């Protein structure tokens, strides 16, 4: 076990990317994600990497696309409006099967919005976000430790599935300082035989976002369906906390999960049996976490810092076995533990 260090979430994420072998960052400043860009602007040149502040988020994601085509571990980071600008490029990366990491340190929206933390980009993140039938692998940290750990995991999963991955955080997780322990140095990134990097004479390689024919496009989609089915089977991640005997199961991720856990702890002390299912992978959604919950639980309460987005996935996972209610609002609303307690007691 190494020594614990205090770090901000955004810095922990950035340093973790370096540990994961990411040496290339392209991005455009936007609060509250800019610390990632600033940290990497400072760190990457020290270790022979490249940092480039692009002219826009549109350019940034396409630079990421190029670097990924060259076989590098590469990332960008932005916040909600900037991530919207990247959607075309993300769709292309999904089509061309280019692994990369997009970090969304979400802010309250729609439109320009304001910078308080929010979870209102859940739909955009988990439904693909751009045009076409595709998914990102989406991981949602809830602590500074996970800002680091899930970043390393996101790079690994992106490479494993040849697919873009996303870290969906918020400004609170980005700005927060907590103790962090670095685990063992991750393994080196894999060599990407499909990329256009070249060390020896070989046949030409093509990185195409549009297949050669109509049949080719169907083939690509069939392949993606098969790939996503594998990810759905193997990559569901979640944390169950005090659910075994829980009458009410709260479902929340990220910052909302921290607040909900506090409410659950407080209620437990008062003799109320509440528990928490915390999705860590938002896509694939951890439907497996809900197997058999109806044996003890009477209802689910989904707590979100949005007007109700993940509640859709919880309803699909629960499939009518017990009632599912949502609690949440977009626009920068943050529940207090007391508010969550009150809502749980209404069950």
């Amino acid at each position, binding site marked *: 076990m190494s020594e614990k260090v205090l770090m901000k979430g955004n810095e922990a994420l950035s340093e973790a990317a370096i540990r994961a072998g990411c040496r290339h960052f392209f991005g455009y400043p936007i609060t509250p994600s800019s610390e990632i860009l600033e940290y990497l602007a400072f760190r990457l040149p020290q270790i022979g990497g490249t940092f480039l502040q692009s*002219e*826009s988020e549109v350019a940034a994601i*396409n630079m990421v*696309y190029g670097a990924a085509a*060259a076989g590098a571990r590469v990332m960008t980071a932005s916040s909600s409006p900037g991530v919207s600008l990247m959607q075309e490029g993300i769709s292309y990366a999904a089509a061309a099967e280019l692994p990369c990491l997009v970090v969304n340190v979400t802010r309250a929206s729609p439109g320009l919005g304001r910078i308080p933390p929010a979870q209102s980009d859940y739909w955009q993140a988990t439904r693909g976000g751009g045009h076409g039938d595709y998914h990102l692998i989406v991981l949602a940290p809830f602590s500074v430790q996970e800002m680091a750990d899930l970043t390393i995991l996101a790079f690994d999963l992106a490479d494993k599935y040849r697919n873009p991955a996303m870290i969906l955080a918020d400004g609170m997780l980005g700005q927060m300082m907590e103790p962090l322990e670095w685990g063992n140095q991750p393994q080196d990134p894999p060599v990407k035989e499909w990329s256009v990097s070249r060390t020896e004479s070989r046949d030409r390689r093509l990185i195409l976002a549009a297949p050669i024919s109509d049949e080719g496009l169907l083939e690509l989609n069939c392949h993606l369906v098969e790939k996503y089915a594998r990810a759905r089977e193997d990559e569901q991640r979640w944390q169950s906390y005090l659910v075994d005997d829980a009458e009410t199961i709260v479902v929340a991720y990220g910052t909302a999960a921290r607040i909900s856990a506090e409410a659950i702890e407080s209620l437990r002390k008062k003799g109320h049996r509440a528990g928490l299912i915390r999705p860590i992978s938002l896509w694939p959604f951890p439907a497996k976490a809900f197997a058999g919950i109806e044996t003890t639980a009477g209802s689910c309460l989904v707590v979100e810092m949005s007007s109700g987005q993940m509640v859709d996935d919880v309803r699909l996972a629960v499939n009518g076995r017990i009632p599912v209610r949502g609690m949440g609002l977009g626009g920068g609303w943050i529940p207090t533990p007391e508010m969550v307690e009150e809502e749980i007691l209404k069950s």
Partner: protein
Amino acid sequence: MSTTNVERVLFERPQSLVALPFPYCPGCSHGIINRLVAEVVDSLGISERVVGVTSIGCSVRCWKHFTYDMVQAAHGRAPAVATGLRRVMPDRIIFTYQGDGDLAAIGTAEALHSAARGERITIFFVNNAIYGATGGQMAPTTLLGQKTSSSPYGRDPVAAGFPIRVAELLATLPAPGYIARVGVFDAANVNRARRAVQRAFEVQMEGKGFSLVEFLASCPTNLKMDPVKANEWVQKELQQYFPLGQFKSPEE
């Protein structure tokens, strides 16, 4: 290649072109420009080092015809994709191949900023003053008064502004190493164009930064002219607004 009983091969398919008929319309300049790029890559002996980035428009198809590694970019984003490739692979020779809508409309920012950074890439910019793939709409380089399917009364500067001279515009920046505009409407100009392509690659290989060659090209299908007339139109009308020449070179 089948050979007849000639003593010397005067003309053959460049090695870095795939043995595949070009898909372009009769009289389209893309075939000539694709071929020029391939010829120069062959003569410089760099085909194993080259990575091409294609764009959206008629030019999207060129990936099928080059024997090098090719990466397909979203509309207008080829210079950004090339930048990403460049930053990971410093020893490769990287070019983009873009039309006028791709480079001078939707992708203006990426083209301008890659030039401003002096990104060590080469852009081949095909300016035929009209949109080809989507069926003859107005381009950012469409001439004043020119009728297109989206400027049926002729391009009116009050409503649609003036055509953009990309080569001159980018030449105002300090970083680019080489910028030239060439024609491919007759043999002498094709030869000059070939030299410009070569110079553009050399500037990149010598580490002298960004290079761009703008080709005045013809699109008979959408100009609704036969190939000869279309070529004449490029030479007379288009060239008048877009003068040929070298706008920037490392020697200056």
